C-alpha cells in the first residue's frame, strides 16, 4: 500500500490507482468533464492511445484484453463520449471480455439537472456491464477502481464501468490504495465439486461416443493445454465454438471444426450422435444449438462453467460442475488418470478403447466425406482463397475480424495455432469491431503480426481508426474481402427473401486505397487472383498500417449453413 502525507487531486489518484493495477495502456478520448484527468495524463508515463471515436476505445480495450489476457482500459468523457462506448461495452459483455471503462461525469451538484453533456451512464449500462460505479468523491476513487479491476478480471469476466464526476477529480485526497478487495457478496467459485467431477469421470469412461464441446471459457481461463491433454488422454474428438477457436490447433487430429449454424458438418454430426457431451466453458448460444430440442438429444451433458447461471440455462446438464475451467479440468484429468491406472478398471478401459476406436473412425470417415469446399478453379478471387493465403503468409499472426461472411470464412479457413490468436465479436456480432480491436491487440502484443480480416461493409463502420493506427505507428494490415455487398444479409435475402436485395448493394461506395492513403497508410487493391499473394506479402512486410482491398467473387456464400431454427443436421445446400 502506498501512503502519502501530501494530498493529491482526484485525477492524480485516478492515475496512481491505475498504476497500482499495473495498467500501462489506456485507450481514450478527452472531453470537458475529463479535463482534470487529461491534465494528469499529460505528465504521467501511462501509454495513452488517442482513438478517433469512443466506440473504438472500448473495442480497442476489448481487443487488448482478448489478446493479452489482461484487463483492457478505456476512457471517455461524459454524455456523448460515454454513450459512444455502449456498443463496445455490450460487445465485451456478450463475449465475457474483461475491460474497465472509465467515463467522466458532470459535477455531482449538477447530476439530474440535464446539465450539458450529462447522461445517466450507470443507468444506461446497467444491463450490459458486469457491474458499474458512480463515484462522486475523490476519496472513493481508489476503492472503486480496485473493486472494478477485481470484478472485471475474476469469475466470469466482463466489463465494469466507473463513472467519475468532475468534482471528484478536482478535489484533494490523501491517497491510499486498498491492499485487497473485500466484496462479501461477490465470491466466485473456482474449485469444482469433487463428487461431481468424479461422476463426470465415471460417465466419460463409460461413454461410447464422447465429445468435447468447448468455447471461450477455455481461452479466458488459459486452460487450452489442459483441454488438449484431456482430449489426447482418452482420444476424445473436440469441437470449438467461434469463441473457442485456437484453444486447440486447427490441425490437431482430434479437432473436428466449429459447430453450429455455419459449423463443420462433422462437428454437428458428432454433437448429434454423441452419448456424452463434455461442455467446457461454453454457453450453448442459439447460433450453435439450432433447434434446442434436437441438440445433442442422445447425450448426457456434463457442463463445466464458472458461471452457475449458464448451467441448464439452455441445455439441461446432467452433471453440472461450477468452477474455473482450468482447475476443474486439472482435477478431472487426475481422476481419470487414477482410474486408468487402477488394475480393476482394466476391462472398463479396454471396452472404452474399443468403442472409442469405432467412434473416432466413424468421425474421421465423416470428416473425409464432408470437407469444406469452394471452387478453387474459379477465375474470380474466392474469399476462402484470400483467407487461406493469409494463413500461409502469416501463420502466427493474430487474426481479428469484423462481422459477417468474411468472419465465417476466417473461422473456417485460417489454420489456428494457439489460443488468443483469433479475436472476433461472437455474441453481439458487432460490425466495426475489427480495426479498433486489432489496434488493441497490436498495442498489447507489439511483436506479433496483426491482421484484420474485414468486409467492405464492416470496415466502413470504424475506418476512421486508420488515423489512430497511423498516429501510433501500429502496422496493422486490414484485408477487405470486398464483394460490394453487406454480404451476410445479402446471403439471407438470397436464400429466404426471394433474392430481393433490399439495401445490401454497396458496391463502389468508397475507394479504399485512396481512403488509406488519405490517412497516411498504405493502400493496395487486388483484382487478379495471381496478384493476391504478392500484394498481401508486400502489405505485411511493409511494417506500416495498410489496407488491402481485395475484390472477390460477389456471389459467394458461406456454407455449410443450417437455417435459423432448424436442427443442426438440417443443411441448406448450395445450388449445384
Amino acid at each position, binding site marked *: 500500500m502506498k501512503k502519502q502525507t501530501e494530498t493529491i487531486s482526484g485525477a492524480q489518484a485516478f492515475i496512481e490507482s491505475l498504476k497500482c493495477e499495473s495498467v500501462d495502456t489506456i485507450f481514450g478520448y478527452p472531453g470537458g468533464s475529463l479535463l482534470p484527468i487529461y491534465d494528469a495524463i499529460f505528465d504521467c508515463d501511462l501509454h495513452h492511445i488517442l482513438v478517433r471515436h469512443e466506440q473504438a476505445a472500448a473495442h480497442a480495450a476489448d481487443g487488448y484484453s482478448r489478446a493479452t489476457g489482461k484487463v483492457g482500459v478505456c476512457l471517455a468523457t461524459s454524455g456523448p463520449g460515454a454513450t459512444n462506448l455502449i456498443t463496445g461495452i455490450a460487445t465485451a459483455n456478450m463475449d465475457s471480455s474483461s475491460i474497465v471503462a472509465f467515463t467522466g461525469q458532470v459535477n455531482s451538484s449538477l447530476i439530474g439537472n440535464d446539465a450539458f453533456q450529462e447522461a445517466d451512464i*450507470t*443507468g444506461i449500462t*446497467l*444491463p450490459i456491464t*458486469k*457491474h458499474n460505479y*458512480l463515484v462522486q468523491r475523490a476519496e472513493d476513487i481508489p476503492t472503486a477502481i480496485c473493486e472494478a479491476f477485481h*470484478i472485471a478480471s475474476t469469475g466470469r469476466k466482463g466489463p465494469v464501468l466507473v463513472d467519475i464526476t468532475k468534482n471528484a477529480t478536482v478535489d484533494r485526497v490523501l491517497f491510499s490504495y486498498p491492499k485487497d478487495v473485500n*466484496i*462479501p*457478496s*461477490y465470491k466466485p467459485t473456482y474449485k469444482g465439486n469433487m463428487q461431481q467431477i468424479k461422476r463426470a469421470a465415471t460417465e466419460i469412461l463409460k461413454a461410447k461416443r464422447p465429445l468435447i464441446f468447448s468455447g471461450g471459457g477455455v481461452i479466458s481461463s488459459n486452460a487450452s493445454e489442459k483441454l488438449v491433454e484431456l482430449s489426447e488422454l482418452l482420444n476424445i474428438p473436440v469441437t470449438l465454438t467461434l469463441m473457442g477457436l485456437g484453444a486447440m490447433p486447427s490441425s490437431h487430429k482430434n479437432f473436428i471444426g466449429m459447430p453450429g449454424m455455419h459449423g463443420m458438418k462433422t462437428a454437428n454430426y458428432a454433437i448429434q450422435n454423441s452419448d456424452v457431451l463434455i461442455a467446457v466453458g461454453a454457453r450453448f448460444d442459439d447460433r450453435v444449438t439450432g433447434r434446442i430440442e434436437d441438440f445433442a438429444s442422445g447425450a448426457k451433458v456434463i457442463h463445466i462453467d464458472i*458461471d*452457475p*447461471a449458464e*448451467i*441448464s*440455462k439452455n441445455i439441461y446438464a446432467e452433471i453440472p460442475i461450477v468452477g474455473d475451467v482450468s482447475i476443474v479440468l486439472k482435477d478431472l484429468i487426475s481422476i481419470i488418470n487414477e482410474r486408468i491406472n487402477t488394475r480393476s478398471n482394466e476391462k472398463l478401459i479396454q471396452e472404452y478403447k474399443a468403442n472409442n476406436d469405432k467412434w473416432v473412425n466413424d468421425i474421421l470417415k465423416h470428416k473425409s466425406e464432408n470437407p469444406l469446399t469452394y471452387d478453387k478453379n474459379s477465375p474470380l478471387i474466392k474469399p476462402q482463397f484470400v483467407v487461406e493465403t493469409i494463413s500461409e503468409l502469416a501463420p502466427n499472426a493474430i487474426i481479428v475480424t469484423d462481422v459477417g461472411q468474411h468472419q465465417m470464412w476466417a473461422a473456417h479457413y485460417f489454420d489456428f495455432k494457439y489460443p488468443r490468436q483469433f479475436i472476433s465479436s461472437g455474441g453481439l456480432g458487432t460490425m466495426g469491431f475489427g480495426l479498433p480491436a486489432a489496434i488493441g491487440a497490436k498495442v498489447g502484443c507489439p511483436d506479433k503480426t496483426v491482421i484484420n480480416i474485414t468486409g467492405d461493409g464492416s470496415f466502413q463502420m470504424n475506418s476512421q481508426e486508420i488515423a489512430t493506427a497511423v498516429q501510433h505507428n501500429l502496422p496493422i494490415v486490414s484485408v477487405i474481402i470486398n464483394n460490394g455487398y453487406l454480404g451476410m444479409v445479402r446471403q439471407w435475402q438470397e436464400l429466404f427473401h426471394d433474392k430481393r436485395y433490399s439495401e445490401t448493394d454497396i458496391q463502389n461506395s468508397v475507394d479504399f486505397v485512396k481512403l488509406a492513403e488519405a490517412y497516411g497508410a498504405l493502400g493496395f487493391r487486388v483484382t487478379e487472383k495471381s496478384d493476391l499473394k504478392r500484394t498481401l506479402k508486400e502489405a505485411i512486410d511493409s511494417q506500416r498500417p495498410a489496407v488491402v482491398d481485395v475484390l472477390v467473387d460477389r456471389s459467394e456464400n458461406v456454407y455449410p449453413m443450417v437455417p435459423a431454427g432448424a436442427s443442426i443436421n438440417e443443411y441448406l445446400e448450395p445450388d449445384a
Partner: protein
Amino acid sequence: MSQKKSDKSETEGQKHILSVLVENKFGVLVRVSGLFSRRGYNIDSLSVAVTENPSISRMTIVVRADDQVLEQVKKQLNKLIDVIKVIDLNDEEHVERELALIKVKTVKDTKPEILQIVDAFRAKVIDIATDSFIIEVTGDDKKIEAIETLLRPFEIQEMVRTGRVGLSRGYKEGSRDRN
C-alpha cells in the same frame, strides 16, 4: 408491480416468495427490478426496506415461475454484485404477511355492517371521515382478497397493498443478515 414481457412464465408456474438480502446502496433496486424486466420474469409484488443492519436491505419479491425459470431467477439474482443472499421462502417454514389500506364509502346505515366485517377480520379502522373509513388489514393475500370482496359492495374508493413480506421461522445459528 407487475411485469408482462414474455409469455414464458405468464401462464404457468407457482408463486414463490424470494427473500433477497442486498447491499443498502444507491441503485440496487433498479439493478434487481431491471433484471426481472430484462429477462422477462414476472414480479407479482416487490417490497424493500432496510434490515436491522443498516448496510443491508431486504427485498421480498413474489414471483410466478416454473421450476426452471425460478432456478434462473435465483442464479441471475446471485450474479448481481450487490446481492448478498437469495432465500426461497417456499423451501422452508416461514410466515408471511401483507398489509392493505382500504378506503371505503360509508353512509349512516352501512357503518355497523362495515364495522362488523372489520371486527371479524381483526382489521382496524384507522381513519374516520364523514363519509368514509380507512381500514387497515394485515394477513396473507387470501385474507386481504376476502375482506376486499366483502367491502366492495359498499364502494371501495381507494386501496393500497404493500406486497408480501416474509421471514423463515425459528432461530438459526449464523443466519444473521451479516455474520
